[in-house]
């Protein structure tokens, strides 16, 4: 009995561990490839964006931590700054159908409109493929990929892991800091930080 249960699970672990190890994105290495459909049906791939820097933002409009940054206009401000600096901003919704934050294209567009948000596109990832490839854990969870497709930042939006909008003022915004470092031609000083928020509802 024991043997029968043990060996398949051990085998599974041995097969899966290397996969998991490969899946984890690393700073300074090529960012995981992806292919995602936006709210207009357009397909975006990382390969197709080569030559342009990209910001990926995992989001779930019902998550208190996402509401903290959208409610205060913090996320929208960051989107505008990134756009001005030539970044492609992709908001990714990885909530599975039936789970919190799952939306269709129309609803996603409505959210963008009502929140006055300006992402380049909103990718709908209901099967979680992009989320899993990037190891996205929380909403928000932020990634920055440079022109060569190299991952240069992953982690939280700032250093105050709370849902209280009052904590936005005075927080160190890691994404803004990374954009500034790159604009100054410097490597990103803090390339990894703790992502915080709600879990991605895979």
């Amino acid at each position, binding site marked *: *009995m*024991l*043997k029968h249960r*043990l*060996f398949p699970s*051990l085998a599974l*672990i041995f097969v899966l*561990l290397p996969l*998991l*190890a490969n899946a*984890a994105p690393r700073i300074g290495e090529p960012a995981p490839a992806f292919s995602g459909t936006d709210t207009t049906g357009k397909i975006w791939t990382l390969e197709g964006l080569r030559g342009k820097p990209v910001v990926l933002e995992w989001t779930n409009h*019902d*998550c*208190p*931590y996402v509401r903290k940054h959208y409610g205060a206009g913090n996320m929208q401000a960051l989107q505008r700054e990134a756009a001005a600096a030539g970044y492609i901003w992709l908001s990714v919704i990885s909530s599975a159908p039936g*789970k*919190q934050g799952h939306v269709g294209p129309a609803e996603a567009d409505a959210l963008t409109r009502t929140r006055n948000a300006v992402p380049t596109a909103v990718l709908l990832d209901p099967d*979680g493929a992009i989320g*899993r490839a990037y190891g996205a*854990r*929380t909403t928000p969870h932020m990634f920055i990929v440079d022109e060569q497709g190299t991952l240069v930042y*992953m*982690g939280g939006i700032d250093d105050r*892991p*709370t*849902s*209280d909008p009052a904590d936005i003022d005075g927080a160190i915004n890691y994404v803004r800091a990374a954009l500034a470092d790159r604009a100054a031609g410097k490597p990103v000083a803090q390339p*990894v930080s*703790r*992502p*915080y*928020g*709600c*879990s*991605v*509802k*895979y």
Partner: protein
Amino acid sequence: MHVLLLLAMTWVLVSPVVGAAGPSDHDPARVRTEHLTARLLAERPVVAAGESLDLALVFELETGWHTYWRNPGDSGEPPRVQWALPDGVSVGAMRWPRPSLIRVGPLANYGYSGRAAHLFRLHVPVDWRAGEPLRVVADARWLVCKEACIPEQGRFELQLDVTDDPAASHGSAPAVDRLFIEARDRLPAGEPIRAHVENSDGRLWLQVPARRLPSPLTGAWLFAGRWGLIDHAAEQPWRLHDDVLTLELTPGEAPDDRLEGVLVVESGSASRAFPIEADANPTQSTPEPVPTAQASDLALSSALLFAILGGLILNLMPCVFPVLAIKALALARQAGAGPAARLVHGLIYTAGVLTFFALVAGLLLALRAAGAAIGWGFQLQSPVFVALMAYLFLVMGLALAGGLTIGSRLMGLAGAAGAKADHGHLGTFVTGALAALVAAPCTAPFMGAALGYALVQSWYIALAIMLALGFGLALPFLVLAVVPGLAARLPRPGAWMSVLEQLLAFPLLATAAWLTWVLSVQTGSAGVGALLAGALSLVFGLWLLERSRNARRGWRWLTLVLAPVSLIAALGLAVGTGRLDVATVRTAATDGPRAEPWSAGRLAQARADGRPVLVNMSAAWCISCLVNERVALSSDAVAKAMAGADVLYLKGDWTNRDPAITDYLAGFGRSGVPMYVVYPVNGKPRLLPQLLTEQIVLDALSTLVPSGGDHRRELRP
């Protein structure tokens, strides 16, 4: 009116008062939100100046909802508290109960379900004026999640009476007492365990000295103290080896040379948590000497000696002696052969035994490497193996009794034909291997310790011990074969041999009968039915083959078809016993004091209740277990002694594989039964010998209860 006033005063004293900030209902004692109830409690309603006492912030969570540990894992947020305190009063940092792993899809959180009680130490200054109430206010924020997450907050106010008489400051409601006892029980215990962590091949290897960990260990999980150190969701394969627990961790996004966290271990149904601090420096041995399983303390040389002794004793076991007897018979036949020929036979027999033991050792090591916990009585725990062995002994018995001449061919394999010159060497070799095979389940007194030792050693030591065991088993025969003086004293061959041969059939048939009974315990009457039908089919097939030798042609064709059919049917029936539901099997009925079935939980509960316990680990196929039960455990005197000391008698049945029992045995450095453990009211468990006498049991029972007075702890109503 009077009662109402009293009630109101009680609320003020022992319960928090809800402030305006939190969502609340009419009950001022709690902050109640949609999915949880939060309370702030004091250990006691009265405190003396200069004293300290514990406060608890307690979350009672709706099913499916959870709050978070200080490192919440992949998402979430730990609760935080801000205190508003009078001058001079201080509150220590939040103490976190051990977290649980909460998996959310591919992610993992560290947090709490059901109830989370966070403790704080409150210090009252010496100069606090007695009689002046002490008021503390806590503003708490927390996140509560199921699928969705809700940030919540609440204000808690607590008022304590301060007395100048420390003696008057004690006593509180039993429910509050219990809550604090449980809360402290869930805190990581003691000083941090210093551990070693190494990053190699993209894995983090955490090595924790196991001295303070409970035994037997059935589960282990490291909760990293902050984000980025490890992948929170990754599996954590662990193994215990040489008193070191090794966990294989997956590094997180921000790995560090140092790893801090809490190790939660399981032992049976009990969980405990220990703070861990690990760095890349070699592990320093913990100064405190804590006794480990005694078998592990055996030096290699004495372990080898014990193994040889154990092997020697195996020769006398009922399940190996018949085979040895057959071999001795063959040797007697050979008395005329030269010393060289006898030496060769002796060595070949030894080689047969050693080959078997090497094979088993290899298998044991392979299974151990795979993490499987197996014990020595392993073979006899498989009904198919038991059925096939019963067939074998039946056929050998019939052959010896003269019922089957075809037996001489089978016995050539089984060893009885070892004397024949043509396939004598093969026969001798097979006899050796067979003796070892049937000896294996009979755990002699020395074998348990030696094997327990072998199981936790490196592979070459384990192999050496297994081979020493085999050597011990082969030794009497080897001596008999090598020393001419001894061989000469063996009786000369003669007519007595055929009588002896027939006589030896009975131990073999008795063994077959015993195996049938073992099978009946394992599989019930259905298995016995299958075995008997199979035996009938087998004997019929062999008889057909026997007839066909000297028979006419037509008859011969018939038997050539029918005999294989009946033999295959016999095999099929034996294999079929393996499919019978063994889960429904009950403990073999034995006399003696009334026993409860053993479980780790029952044992822990009895220990907690302050009852002395006698544990008996037994199996239907274990002869010495049955002898002990008959000789030492079932007398009136023992029953009376047990009743007198209110000893809980727990009996574990290892007839079929039971991993919980295997782990329990391993906790004492054993890998086989019988095993007897006594647990005194206070103090460490003690092993009894594997061969018991009534006096040993009575002596052991008399030490369990501290002399004088009732040992039973008073139970709260």
